[in-house]
C-alpha cells in the first residue's frame, strides 16, 4: 500500500510540471507585416482561440484601413480626390479619423496621415518599392499646398475635404491602433499575460510568469539587437527606422519616413525608439509619436519630445551617435555598443 501511495503521489507531482507554464506563440501576416502573439499561462486551446479572434479583428481593420488596396479608406480617398463627399457609417472609423486629426495637430503635422499622395509619389504605396525619386518640381508643387488632417471636414457621418490632394494613409497609425485592439480583446477574454508584436510595435500585457516580458531593440545597421528592455505590464514600445521600407540610389538611402516640410525622406536619423506607459491608447501613441521624433530636424527633436510628453526615447542619429533620455537610459540594457560613436543622455 505504501508503494502505491508513493506512486500516486509521484504521478500527481509529475503532472504538475509543464502545461500552464508554457508560452504559446502564433504568427500571421496582415497589414503587410508580421504579427507575433505570445500568450503565457493559458491552455493551448484558449490561447489559439483568442489569438484567432485577434487575427480576425486585424483582418477586419485591414479591410477598413488599407491605404492602397481596396478598403473603406481607399474608397474615401477616391471620393475626396474627385471633390465628392463620402459617407462613413461606422462610429469606430469616425473616431479613428478624429484621433488622427488630433494627433497630427499635436505633432505640428510632423505626423501627417493626410499626405498619402506624397508617399505614393515616392513609390512606397506598393508592396515592391519602385525605387525612383520624383522630380523636385513635383515635390515642390505638392508641398506648397500640403494637405493636412484639418482639411478634412467631418459632419456626423459625412466626410469631405477642400483639398483634393488629401489622401489618408494610416500607415503610421494602424499598427498602433491594432495593438490597442489586441489589448482590449485579450482583456475581454480574461487573458492576463501576453506579448503582442505587430511589425515591430509591441505591447506587453501582464508578465511572463514571475518576470517581465523582455524586448530586444533592433540595431538599425546590423541583423541583431542593440539593446533590450523590460517591457512592464501595459507598456508599449515603438520604433521608426529607415531600414524597413527604403531604397538606395547613388549610395543614398531614401526611407518611407518623409518630412512634410521638405517633401523628402528625413535623413537625420537611423531610428527612433520610444516607450509609452500604460494608457487607453498607448499602442497608438507608441506608433504615432515615434514619427515626429524621427522626421523633425535634430535641433528640435528634444523640444518635440518634451511637448508630446515622451519621457522614454532613444534616437540613433545618422552619424551613429545616440541621443537618449535620462529615463530611457535607466531602463535600457545595451547588448551591442562597440561601433557606436557616443551616447548623449538628456
Amino acid at each position, binding site marked *: 500500500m505504501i*508503494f502505491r501511495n508513493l*506512486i500516486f503521489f*509521484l504521478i500527481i507531482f509529475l503532472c504538475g510540471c509543464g502545461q500552464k507554464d508554457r*508560452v504559446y506563440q502564433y504568427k500571421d501576416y496582415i497589414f503587410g507585416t508580421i504579427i*507575433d502573439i*505570445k500568450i503565457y499561462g493559458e491552455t493551448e486551446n484558449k490561447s489559439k482561440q483568442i489569438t484567432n479572434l485577434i487575427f480576425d479583428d486585424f483582418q477586419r481593420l485591414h479591410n477598413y484601413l488599407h491605404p492602397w488596396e481596396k478598403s473603406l479608406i481607399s474608397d474615401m480617398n477616391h471620393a475626396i480626390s474627385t471633390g465628392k463627399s463620402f459617407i462613413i457609417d461606422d462610429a469606430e472609423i469616425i473616431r479613428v479619423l478624429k484621433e488622427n486629426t488630433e494627433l497630427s495637430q499635436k505633432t505640428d503635422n510632423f505626423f501627417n496621415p493626410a499626405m498619402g499622395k506624397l508617399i505614393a509619389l515616392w513609390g512606397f504605396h506598393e508592396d515592391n518599392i519602385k525605387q525612383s525619386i520624383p522630380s523636385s518640381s513635383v515635390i515642390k508643387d505638392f508641398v506648397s499646398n500640403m494637405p493636412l488632417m484639418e482639411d478634412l471636414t467631418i459632419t456626423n457621418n459625412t466626410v469631405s475635404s477642400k483639398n483634393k490632394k488629401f489622401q489618408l494613409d494610416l500607415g503610421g497609425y494602424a499598427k498602433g491602433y491594432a495593438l490597442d485592439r489586441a489589448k482590449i480583446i485579450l482583456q475581454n477574454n480574461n487573458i492576463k499575460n501576453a*506579448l503582442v*508584436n505587430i*511589425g*515591430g*510595435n*509591441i505591447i506587453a500585457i501582464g508578465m*511572463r510568469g514571475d518576470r517581465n*516580458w*523582455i*524586448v*530586444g*531593440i*533592433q540595431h538599425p545597421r546590423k541583423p*541583431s*539587437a542593440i539593446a*533590450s*528592455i523590460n517591457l512592464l505590464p501595459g507598456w508599449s*514600445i*515603438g*520604433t521608426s*527606422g529607415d*531600414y*524597413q521600407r527604403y531604397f538606395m540610389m547613388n549610395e543614398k538611402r531614401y526611407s518611407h519616413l518623409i518630412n512634410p516640410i521638405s517633401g523628402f525622406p528625413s535623413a537625420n536619423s537611423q531610428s527612433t*525608439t520610444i516607450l509609452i506607459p500604460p494608457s487607453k491608447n498607448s499602442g497608438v501613441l507608441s506608433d504615432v509619436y515615434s514619427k515626429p521624433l524621427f522626421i523633425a530636424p535634430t535641433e528640435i527633436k528634444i523640444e518635440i519630445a518634451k511637448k508630446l510628453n515622451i519621457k522614454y526615447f532613444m534616437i540613433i542619429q545618422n552619424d551613429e551617435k545616440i541621443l537618449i533620455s535620462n529615463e530611457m537610459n535607466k531602463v*535600457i*540594457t*545595451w*547588448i*551591442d*555598443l562597440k561601433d557606436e560613436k557616443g551616447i548623449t543622455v538628456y
Partner: protein
Amino acid sequence: MKKVLPFIKTVKLGDVLIIFMLMGLIIFIINKSWNTPIGQYLKIEKNNEPPKIISLNQIKEEEIAGLLGDSNISIVDGKARFSKAPCTKKYCIHQGWINKVNQTIVCLPNQITISITDGSESYDSVNY
C-alpha cells in the same frame, strides 16, 4: 527485523517492476537536466556597467578593461574562456572553457564575470 520481514513478504512482482521503472525515470530526468543546452551568447559583466552580450559563433579575442588591467577572453566555436588576466592567482584562466547555458566564470580581483546565455532567453520579441 521482525517487523520488516512480513512487510517485504507483501511486495509483489508488479511493485518491484514499478520501483525499477521509477528509478529508471529518475536517472533519465537527472541525466537530461544535467545536459543543459549549449549556449549561443557570451555575457560579459563588469562592475557597475551594463552587460555586454556577444555571439559565441565566432573566433574572437575580446579585451576587457577591469579594475587591475586588461583581461582577454577567447571565443572559439561556441565556447569561451579567460586567456589572459592581470590577477595574481589566475583562477579564472584555470577554469578553462565554458559553453553551456548559465556556466559562469568570475574573476573577482579584476571584477569581470563571463557567463553563457541562450539567445532566446535574452529577449521574448524584437522591436524594429
